[in-house]
């Protein structure tokens, strides 16, 4: 009953619109990566130049930490929050709305507010910790080489876990009552219900959201750029920020394009394999 051509008809309009908008940018970036700023072909010179920069490997490993750290906490906290918000309790509507706030606050404002709250001298957080004597000395959250990247990850988690929570909550809401009833007939406890009913049922949503979070973490530079610009001493430099700085601060659009091409190749490979491995068991019909 599934005619193959019908499937194409459904997906075509979206693909056309996207194709129209990104075809030229993709071609343009590819072309820039193999030319110099006069438009002459230079082969792989740009790639060599950018790979030779001291910052490139640092940025690569920072990106890895940034992505993995952000995703793990976003997903775990997001799912736990969704389960909590799926409970029936008084004031649930308020809690649900409040949960959304970090995500709704403009990124640039959230970043500056956090930078200010975390400031060694002005910051309310150090004040709250030192005034009652929890800490002896104010902590340089953003100036200490070992805390700055974890702090950035924490802010990113704070900003994005509500999104996971809302998406998973929507999935939880669609679970049919029959499944819960069946579990209850079997005498399942709440946590067994979570493990055997809720999580398997929202798995497709979690799988999809995780991919989106990976893509986001790879491309969202607002938080880091607004707070540390990649510093101190490149401790928080991630590849997209390196690309941004190379293009718009150093005016080296060709090298930036070369780095973009490599970044894109790695990202698309990761995404493609992720889809291949998850598509098979994520519930496609037939």
């Amino acid at each position: 009953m599934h005619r193959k051509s019908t499937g194409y008809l459904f997906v075509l309009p979206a693909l056309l619109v996207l194709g129209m908008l990104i075809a030229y940018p993709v071609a343009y970036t590819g072309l820039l990566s193999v030319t110099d700023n006069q438009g002459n072909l230079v082969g792989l010179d740009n790639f060599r130049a950018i790979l030779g920069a001291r910052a490139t490997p640092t940025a690569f490993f920072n990106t890895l930490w940034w992505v993995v750290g952000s995703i793990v906490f976003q997903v775990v906290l997001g799912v736990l929050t969704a389960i909590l918000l799926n409970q029936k309790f008084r004031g649930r509507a308020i809690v649900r709305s409040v949960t959304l706030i970090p995500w709704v606050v403009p990124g640039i404002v959230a970043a500056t507010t956090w930078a200010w709250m975390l400031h060694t001298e002005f910051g309310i957080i150090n004040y709250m910790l030192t005034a009652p004597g929890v800490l002896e000395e104010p902590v340089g959250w953003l100036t200490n080489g070992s805390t700055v990247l974890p702090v950035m990850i924490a802010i990113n988690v704070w900003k994005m876990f509500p999104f996971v929570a809302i998406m998973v909550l929507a999935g939880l809401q669609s679970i049919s009552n029959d499944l819960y009833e069946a579990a209850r007939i079997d005498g399942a406890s709440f946590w067994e219900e979570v493990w055997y009913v809720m999580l398997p049922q929202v798995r497709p949503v979690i799988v999809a959201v995780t991919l989106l979070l990976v893509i986001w973490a790879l491309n969202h530079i607002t938080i880091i750029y607004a707070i540390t610009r990649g510093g101190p001493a490149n401790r928080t430099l991630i590849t997209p920020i390196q690309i941004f700085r190379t293009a718009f601060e150093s005016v080296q659009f060709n090298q930036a394009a070369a780095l973009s091409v490599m970044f894109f190749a790695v990202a698309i490979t990761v995404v493609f394999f992720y889809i291949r491995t998850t598509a098979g068991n994520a519930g496609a019909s037939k």
Partner: protein
Amino acid sequence: MFAFREEVMRVFKTAAILGLTVSGLALSAGWANAGEVTWWTPNFNEARARELAEKFQAANPDITINLEITTTDGLPQRILTALRSGSAPDIIDVQHGWVNGYAQNDLVVPLDDVVTEREDYVPAALNYVTWNDQLWALPYRIETHAIIYNKGDFVAAGLDPANPPQTWEEFIAAAEAMTKDGKSGFAVTGGGEVGNTIFRSLPFIWMAGGAIISDDGTEVLVNSPETVRAVQFYTDFYKNGISPSSTLENDGTANRRLFIAETVSMYQSGQFDINSIRQENPDIDVGVMTIPHPEGADTAAILGGWSLVLPTDAKNPEDAKKFLAFLGETESQAVLTDTFPARVSAMSAERFNDPILEVFKEMLPYGRPVPSHPNWVQISQAYFDGIQRILLGDEDVQTAMDGVAADIEALL
């Protein structure tokens, strides 16, 4: 060699024109007609720019000046996007330091025929916007840093606020004397945009006889003994606890706020900070001193400020040049600037006679441009990373500057 990008661009342009003719679509915004000049100027310049535009229009009724107000956040990105995609306005306000990059990428046109009476300009301002022996912008505003200090803190530490320190040794002694009771004697920067720390540390390097790269851009001098001595001087303020513990996250604005909160006694900045301080904390008795120098050497500062450029893709370059020539006149320059004018003759205007500006004026002749090198931004980034490594305690000064030298070597 083939100019591939140009080729693609031309095809695209032709296709665009064809498509537009066929469909009969009229383009509205962004395409100025003859007699219209579009000028992008930042929000803090709006009132003065409007005043000058009206004056010019009154004298040239056939030319209309369209002001588009830009914001400082993201300004370099927005300008570059417009310049590179071929839909630039006719005139743009930019910082001196950006001009070189635009010139090297053919994004703006030379203005040698517009900037006349060059002997009347501060030479450093012209040097800034010169590349390949041509002038690529019309400088209209210049400024340098000085050291702003809290006179009350001087008195409290038993120092004479009327005789601020002159040499590095005196300065360190004064800063140490004021570092007590939770106050920091002198705040340096170690965070924010690269420019903040370049503006505050490079002058010390110059005074000590060092440099980051040689003037001709062929030699790396960042690990020379002179430079290392100055970097040591700069970073020691933090290492020795004279600069606040938040130094690594502070830029110029943060230092001003710490000064206003009365936890910092001295910091480097320009005259633009004076109003903020007076407004936000009128209790502080503000003093200004020239930047201290090593015994027997002259003081130094980086010359900062703004210029006007004419993009290569401007729709109406002829009228834009007329307007630029008008903006280059002494009377216009005296009005347009937020700080000091780039023309010496404009300096005699009444508004520059405020006594608090005296020291900033004294600093001007010591103002120098940053080196002009195609990769200056990356060079300064490498240097800034090195400074941060020292402040973080990762490396000592010599090791860090040796590392920076290796990075810069690859960029020359």
